[in-house]
C-alpha cells in the first residue's frame, strides 16, 4: 500500500516560558520536536508496514528548512522517504492556506509516484491545537475522513479500513474505503524509537521542494490567502494570587478555610 503521513515540527510547548517582565514568549532554547500526535500517525503507518512489507511510507511536511531534522527522525523511525515544502511564499498560512499548500504537495506526489491509499495525520499539533488541517486536506483531496482514530484495521485486499473513532462518551466503529484521510490520537498506539539501522541508512532521502517545484497556486497560500488573521495576541493575566490559609495543624487550617467560605458566602 502507499501511505502518506502528514507531520509537523513544533516547539515543545512544555518548555516554553513567559518573560515575566515583557510578557513575551521565550522561544530561545526551546527544543523543536515531532508533533506528538503525528508520531502516532507515523507509528500506525509503520505498523501497517510491519504487517505488509510492501507498504511505502512518505512523510510530508511544510515548514522552515530546519524541519528536515524532524523528518530525519521520521526516516530513522522507519518511514521510506520524506518531502518538505519550504518556501517563504507559504509562510504565515492559516489552516486553510496550509491545507492548500499540503494538498498541492500531495497532488505533486501523485503525479510523480501515482495514487496513494491512506493519508495519516495527527489529531492536532500542540502549538496551535486546532485539529483543522487534517479535515481541510481531506476536503481538498476529496477524501472521506475519520478523525480521532483510536483503532485501525485494514481489510485483506487493502480496499477497506475499519476504525474506531473516539467520542467523549464512547466510540463509533466506522468503515471507509480507501483512499481516505485518518487523524490519529495518542490512544492509538505507542510510537517506536528511532532505530540504529534507520539512523545510519543512507539510502533514504529527504526531498525539499519550493512552491514552484510542487506547482502551488500562489494565490491560495501564505498570509494574504488566509481567511483568518491574528487581530491581537497577548499573554493571559495571572489570576490574582490569594493567600495561604493560616493554622498550626491541619484541623485548624481546615476550620479556618470553612469559616472563610461561610463568611464570604461561598458555601
Amino acid at each position, binding site marked *: 500500500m502507499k501511505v502518506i503521513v502528514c507531520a509537523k515540527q513544533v*516547539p515543545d510547548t*512544555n518548555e*516554553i516560558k*513567559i518573560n515575566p517582565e515583557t510578557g513575551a*514568549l521565550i522561544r530561545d532554547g526551546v527544543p523543536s520536536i515531532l508533533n506528538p500526535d503525528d508520531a502516532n500517525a507515523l507509528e500506525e503507518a509503520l505498523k501497517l508496514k510491519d504487517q505488509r512489507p510492501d507498504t511505502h511510507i512518505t512523510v510530508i511536511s511544510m515548514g522552515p528548512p530546519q524541519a528536515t531534522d524532524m523528518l530525519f527522525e521520521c526516516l530513522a523511525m522507519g518511514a521510506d522517504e520524506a518531502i518538505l515544502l519550504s518556501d517563504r511564499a507559504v509562510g504565515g498560512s*492559516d*489552516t*486553510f492556506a496550509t*491545507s492548500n499548500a499540503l494538498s498541492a504537495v500531495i497532488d505533486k506526489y501523485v503525479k510523480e509516484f501515482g495514487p496513494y491509499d491512506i493519508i495519516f495525520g495527527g489529531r492536532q499539533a500542540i*502549538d*496551535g*491545537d*486546532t*485539529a*483543522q488541517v487534517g*479535515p*481541510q486536506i481531506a*476536503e*481538498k483531496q476529496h477524501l*472521506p*475522513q*475519520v*478523525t*480521532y482514530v483510536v483503532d485501525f484495521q485494514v481489510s485483506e485486499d487493502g480496499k477497506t479500513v475499519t476504525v474506531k473513532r473516539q*467520542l*467523549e*462518551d*464512547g*466510540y*463509533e*466503529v*466506522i*468503515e471507509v*474505503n480507501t483512499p*481516505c484521510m485518518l487523524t490519529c490520537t495518542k490512544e492509538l498506539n505507542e510510537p517506536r524509537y528511532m532505530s540504529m539501522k534507520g539512523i545510519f541508512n543512507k539510502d533514504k532521502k529527504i526531498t525539499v521542494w519550493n512552491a514552484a517545484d510542487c506547482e502551488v497556486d500562489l494565490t491560495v497560500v501564505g498570509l494574504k490567502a488566509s*481567511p*483568518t*488573521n*491574528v*487581530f*491581537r*495576541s*497577548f*499573554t493571559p*493575566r*495571572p*489570576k490574582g494570587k*490569594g*493567600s*495561604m*490559609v493560616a493554622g498550626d495543624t*491541619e*484541623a485548624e*487550617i*481546615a*476550620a479556618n*478555610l*470553612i469559616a472563610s*467560605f461561610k463568611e464570604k458566602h*461561598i458555601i
Partner: protein
Amino acid sequence: MSTNLADYKNIWVFAEQRQGKIMGVALELIGEATKLAKDIDDETKVCAVLVGNGIDHLAQECFEYGADMVYMLQHPLLENFTTDAYAKVMTEAMEEYKPDIVLYGATHIGRDLAPRIAARAHTGLTADCTHLDVSVAKYIEFAKANTTLDTSTLDPNSPDKGLKMTRPAFGGNLMATIISPRTRPQMATVRPGVMSKNERVEGRTGEVVNVAVKLEEADVRTKVLEIVKEAKEMVSLTDADIICSGGRGLGGPEGFELIKAFADKVGGVVGSSRACVDNGWIDHAHQVGQTGTTVKPQIYFACGISGAIQHLAGMQNSDIIVAINKDPDAPIFEVADYGIVGDLYKVIPQIMEAWDK
C-alpha cells in the same frame, strides 16, 4: 464564499444533538449568540440549526433557551453524524441563507465537521475559542480585565462589528484573538463549559424553517457500523458547582478513593490532572485542562496538582481555587485563592470533617 459581506446576516448555532438529545454546549452557544446579536444590531437573529432525523421536538428546547429561529435539516441519512452528510447539508444551507456567524461546540463532532465546512465554503475558522466579542468596546473591557494586552491602540467607538475570537495557543502560554475580515460566514468552535446558557423560558417560541435537504446514499462515504457508549461513570465536569481534583501527588490509583469520598461529602465531582490519566489511575473523562475539559465551578479543589500551564488552562476561571500541595513553591499557588501547604492525606479528611460544622 461571496465577498459582499453585507449580504450575510444573523448568528447560527450548530445545535449538535446526539440520539435526539441536544448537547449542553449548543445551549451555551445560544446564550452567547444572544449577547453577540444584541451587540450587532436589533435585527440580528439567533438561529439554531438542528441536523438529524425525527428531531422536530428539539426546536422547542432551542427556543426556550433563547433561539429566535430554528433551521431544521432532517433526512434519514442524517440520523447519525457523518462528516460527509453533515458537511454537505450545512454548507448548502449556509450558501442559501448566508449567516454572518456560525458557532459550533468544540466537541469531537464539531471539531470534525467545522473545518471541513470551512474548507468547502472558503472561509475562516477559529478553533477552541474561550471568548467572543463583536463590539470593540467590550473587547477592550475583556482585555483590560483578563490580559496584559495594551488596549491604547483600540478605539472603543469603532463601528467594527466583526467577530473577535479569542483562544489559547502554545499550550495556554499565549492567547490570540483571531478575525476573519474578508470572508463570510465567520466561524468558530467554542469549548464546552465556557459560555453561559440563558435562563430557560418555558413556552417561549419562534420561527421554524424546514430546509429542503438534498442527500443520496452515494454522498456518504463512511459507514457507521456501531456507536458504543462506554459504561463509564457519567462525569459532568462542565456543570459541576464543586470539583475535587486529584493529581500525581495522590501517589497511586487508591488516592482517588479519598478524592471520591471528598467529592461526595461536598457535593462535588471528581476531576484529575493528566498525569493520573496517563498513569491509568482514572479515566480520561475526568481530566481537566487543555487536552481535557475546561471547567469553571464555584469551588475547585486542586489536591496534589503542581499547576502545569496545561492544567491551569482548563481551570483558572473557576470562581474559587483551593490548592493543597506539599511543596510551597508549586505553581498552583500562583492561581489559588486559598493555599494550603501540607499533605493532602492529612488535610482533606480535616476539611471533610469541618465541612458540616
